[in-house]
Structures are given as structure tokens and as C-alpha cells.
């Protein structure tokens, strides 16, 4: 399949007249190469391995933006082969007419027709687990059922229609310290007791299966990674070198975690104790963009965070955040960071094979999908439900059922059943492209630290181009297909 794209330099719309001194001369040459009257010809632009077919359909001017046709399967390969070039899909606008209203289906039953079941969650010692989230699915595909949280006695009463005899799926998420569970085909008795399994931090999850983090040497403190998220820590396994809170109206130096997401992300990269992170030794910077009241992160706070991370000298930025539409302001800031030699990695989103979220879908970001592996999570735990085709060349590997996919995906990384840090020196198992993204960022940091030369170059778009080319050489495809894994996964 092919699609039309507009090719642009990182910041401007014109390569040869660009006043941007950081623009790589190779990018200028690239636009010049495409400026020949090749409207109907196919040009073959070679990387190290094989030619990439590209058809120039139109051009704004000799050195201006180009409209090209590219095979979708070669999109990630194109972007790794020609870093520093924005690839914007050609879009078509419609007339502004009122859409029809969506249809809403409700799932309810009258009180007299409902049956009550008490679910109790305990650990192996029989102690109650409070605040565990329970999702009781009558139909998992249709997402119908009931949810709630256990009280201090570890109990939750669920009421469903008397006609419901069994739950297709019952998911239990303890707040921390235990693996989330997945029970299938559960008979709806008056009482159900569920025992959860404690996290053993030396267990080999999918991240440690591929990267053997306890045996990897700590990397030199030459790399700084900015984590734009809910904040980091406190946690004794994590050293946070600096950062900022960029939420309007909140204290600038309050960049500790206001939730738990950012701490988990940071632990995957830099935890110095079991479960050890993939880039232990790296310098972690925390940029809190989510407000303390639990609200969403505004694009302005994200722009400020990226800008601050660049100013602080971060070379890599982790964006485990998602929006279902393009955001011009954040995209522009990612381009600005790229022009200063900084690469942003972003989570593809967890909507289950839906379109890649933004900012991951933006062409200058590295979109990361999530993969998993059978046998890297205990039997009966929640990651089991994320096992879905396609399977790789090794049939134990799979692309997580929750992962968004598309031709914007550039790489994949482990993101199913990942053990990491939870504020207050605790641990938690989470699954998501939010987990795959820091796994990829951390390994990229390790590879760049080992290489040593590129990271010392002047911070410019040329450095970012070189980083991308170098990292490309460390990717290996696992056999899922380009829409699922892009150019594959990093190996060390």
C-alpha cells in the first residue's frame, strides 16, 4: 500500500534558503536531489542495504516542500535512513457539516432483578488487599460489566442481573506490590475469594528476558534523559538529578510524582536496584506536566517541559503521553528539540490496534509500540489477556493486544507485565506502551553511551540525525510486520 506524504525540513518549509544553520547539509542535498523534473519517475535513494522507491508527485519549488508517494511498509525505514526530514501525511479537508449523533447503549438492570456477589481480595497470608480495582466483565469484547474498588476489608460487592451466571473475565489490579490477576469464566457465586501473588523483584519479566538488566554494567553519566510525565518518586532506587514542574500555578521545584505513572516509567530506565532499569547510571530529569488535582496535562505545560529538558542538556526525552489528534504546538516543540540535537520518544497509545496517538504519530518523534513474550509473566496474571497475534519469528513473542499500531510506528519494545518502581519504595507491575517507550529510551541511552562519540558532538539537528542513524543500526526486526514493529527492537 502507498500513501502521499509532504516532505519538509525539520523547522522550515524550504531547505536551500533556510537560514537555520543547524540544518544538516545532507538534508539540503536531499531536497535538491528531489528537485529534478522527476514528477513521473521513480527515484531510488539508497541506504546501506536496499533502495527505497520514492515517487515525486509535486513540488512547491526547487528546494521547497515535496509531495511524494511512499510505500507504507517502508515508512519507518525511510525515516531512519533520512533523519531530519518531516514526513506529513497529505490530508483532505471536508465541508463543515454536522455529523449524525452517536448511538449510546446502556447496560443496566432493575434493583429487584439483580444478584449480589462479594469479591474478597487477599494475599497468600490471607491479609486483605484494600483499594484493589476490580473489573468484572460479562462480555469482554463488548466491554460490558461492572467495576469498583475493594474496601479496607479487601471486599467489593458487585451487583449484576440475575440472568448473568458467569463472568467471562475478572481482572484484579492491586494498587502495588502484587501482580494484577486475570480470571476467566468465573461462576457468579455469593462470594468469590481471590488470592494475589506478591511481586518478586528478581523475577525475569519480558524486559529482563531481553535485556538481562541485573548483569548489565551501569552506564556512564554522560546521558541525560528527560521524563515528561506525572513526576518521579520518591523512591530509594531512583536518583533524580533535577527537573521542574511546568503546571501553571504549581511550585516549579515540586517534581515528585503526583500519581505513580512517572515513577514506573523512570524505574524502567534508571532503577539502580532490583528490578534494575535498562540504563541504570543514566541521569534522570523529572518534568511534571500533570496537575496534582488529577487533571490532564496541557500542551503548554508539555511545551515548557520539553523546552526545559533541552535547556537542562537532556539528549533524550520520554513522552509516555497521548492525545487522539495532532497538536501543532507540541509538534513544533518536538521539532525545535530535534533541531537542538534532542530526540523525543513517544508511546503509541493503548487503545487496542487503533491509530497511533500523538505526539507519537508526529514524524519527528520515535513512536514505540509494545510487545510481550509468553512465559515472562506468572500463570493467571493480567498480562495473559494481552497475548494477541501477530506472533513473531519466535512464536512466544507477540505485539500486545492493547498496543496502537500503524505506519507511524518506528520501533517496538517490551511493554507487557513490566515490574518497576512505585512511590514510597514499593513496586508495581504495569503494561502499556507507556512502559515500552522508556524501555526503548533507556536502551537507546545505553547504546549511545557505549558508542560515546556522537553524544559529544555539538547539540544540533546533525547530531540528532547521527543519533537516529546509529540507533537504526542497532534494531532487529522480530517478524511482526512494519505496522506493528516499525524497524524492530533494540538489542544490546
Amino acid at each position, binding site marked *: 500500500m502507498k500513501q502521499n506524504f509532504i516532505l519538509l525540513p525539520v523547522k522550515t518549509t524550504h531547505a536551500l534558503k533556510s537560514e537555520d544553520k543547524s540544518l544538516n547539509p545532507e538534508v539540503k542535498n536531499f531536497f535538491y536531489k528531489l528537485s529534478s523534473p522527476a514528477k513521473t519517475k521513480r527515484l531510488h535513494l539508497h541506504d546501506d542495504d536496499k533502495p527505497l522507491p520514492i515517487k515525486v508527485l509535486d513540488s512547491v519549488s526547487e528546494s521547497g516542500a515535496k509531495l511524494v508517494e511512499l510505500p507504507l511498509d517502508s515508512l519507518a525505514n525511510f525515516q531512519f535512513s533520512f533523519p531530519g526530514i518531516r514526513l506529513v501525511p497529505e490530508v483532505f479537508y471536508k465541508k463543515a457539516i454536522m455529523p449524525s449523533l452517536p448511538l449510546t447503549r446502556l447496560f443496566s438492570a432493575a434493583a429487584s432483578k439483580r444478584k449480589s456477589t462479594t469479591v474478597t481480595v487477599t494475599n497468600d497470608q490471607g491479609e486483605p488487599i484494600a483499594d484493589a480495582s476490580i473489573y468484572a466483565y460479562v462480555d469482554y469484547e463488548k*466491554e460490558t460489566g*461492572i*467495576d469498583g474498588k475493594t474496601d479496607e476489608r479487601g471486599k467489593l460487592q458487585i451487583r449484576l442481573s440475575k440472568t448473568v451466571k458467569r463472568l467471562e473475565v475478572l481482572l484484579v*489490579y492491586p494498587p502495588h506490590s502484587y501482580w494484577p490477576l486475570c480470571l476467566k469464566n468465573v461462576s457468579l457465586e455469593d462470594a468469590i475469594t481471590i488470592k494475589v501473588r506478591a511481586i518478586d523483584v528478581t523475577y525475569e519479566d519480558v524486559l529482563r528476558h531481553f535485556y538481562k538488566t541485573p548483569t548489565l554494567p551501569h552506564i556512564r553519566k554522560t546521558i541525560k534523559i528527560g521524563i515528561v510525565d506525572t513526576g518521579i518518586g520518591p523512591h530509594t532506587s531512583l536518583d533524580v538529578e533535577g527537573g521542574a514542574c511546568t503546571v501553571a500555578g504549581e511550585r516549579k521545584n515540586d517534581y515528585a510524582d503526583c500519581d505513580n505513572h512517572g515513577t514506573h516509567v523512570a524505574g524502567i530506565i534508571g532503577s539502580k536496584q532490583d528490578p534494575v532499569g535498562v540504563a541504570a547510571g543514566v541521569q534522570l530529569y523529572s518534568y511534571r506536566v500533570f496537575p496534582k488535582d488529577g487533571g490532564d496535562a*496541557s*500542551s503548554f505545560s508539555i*511545551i515548557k517541559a520539553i523546552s526545559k529538558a533541552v535547556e537542562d542538556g537532556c539528549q533524550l526525552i520520554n513522552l509516555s503521553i497521548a492525545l487522539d489528534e495532532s*497538536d501543532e*504546538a507540541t509538534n513544533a516543540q518536538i521539532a525545535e528539540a530535534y533541531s537542538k540535537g534532542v530526540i523525543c520518544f513517544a508511546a503509541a497509545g493503548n487503545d487496542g490496534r487503533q491509530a497511533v496517538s500523538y505526539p507519537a504519530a508526529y514524524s519527528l518523534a520515535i513512536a514505540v509500540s509494545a510487545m510481550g513474550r509468553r512465559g515472562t509473566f506468572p500463570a493467571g496474571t493480567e498480562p495473559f489477556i494481552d497475548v494477541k497475534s501477530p506472533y513473531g519469528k519466535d512464536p512466544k513473542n507477540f505485539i500486545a493486544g492493547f498496543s496502537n499500531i500503524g505506519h507511524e510506528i518506528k520501533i517496538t519494545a517490551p511493554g507487557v507485565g513490566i515490574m518497576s518502581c512505585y512511590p514510597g519504595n514499593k513496586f508495581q507491575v504495569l503494561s502499556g*506502551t507507556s512502559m515500552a517507550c522508556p524501555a526503548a529510551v533507556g536502551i537507546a541511552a545505553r547504546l549511545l553511551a557505549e558508542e560515546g562519540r556522537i553524544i559529544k558532538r555539538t547539540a544540533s539537528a546533525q547530531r540528532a540525525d547521527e543519533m537516529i542513524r546509529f540507533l537504526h543500526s542497532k534494531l532487529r526486526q522480530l517478524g511482526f510486520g512494519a505496522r506493528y514493529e516499525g524497524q524492530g527492537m533494540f538489542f544490546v
Partner: protein
Amino acid sequence: MANRRWILKFIGSATSISKAKVNALLKGNSIHVIDMSLFPKLLLVEGSKQKMNALTSHSDGWTYSPDKSYKVPGTRKKLQP
């Protein structure tokens, strides 16, 4: 028209911009400043779309886009209401 937050971006060619003048311009258009920490490149402001249109159409070098809300991708399964 309802007020909402916008990112006001300077794309003009001027090399120095007076903060006081920009403040006065925004005040004159009933636009409230929320965050000026990235001034002069970017500002976070609050106002109606109508006011933003009026501001950017009468002053050179300014453009605006909505301040959007990002989430962390959900790590738990979904349930319909």
C-alpha cells in the same frame, strides 16, 4: 462565546518585543494571561475565540492554537458505562 485557554505564538520578525506592550494589547482585547514564562516566544492565555481572532488579525506576527489536554495512556482495561 466561551473562554478557553490558547497558546499564543510569536512568529514575527521583530527581535525585541516589549512585555508591557504585549500585556496592554492583551488587556485591551480582554485576554487574560495565564503563563508568561516562555515570553516572548510563547504565552498561555485565556479568552474567547472571537477575541483571539480579533487580536491576531489586528497585530502582526502572532498566531494561536488551542491548549490541548494530554493523558497518560490507560494501563487498565476499559469498561463501557
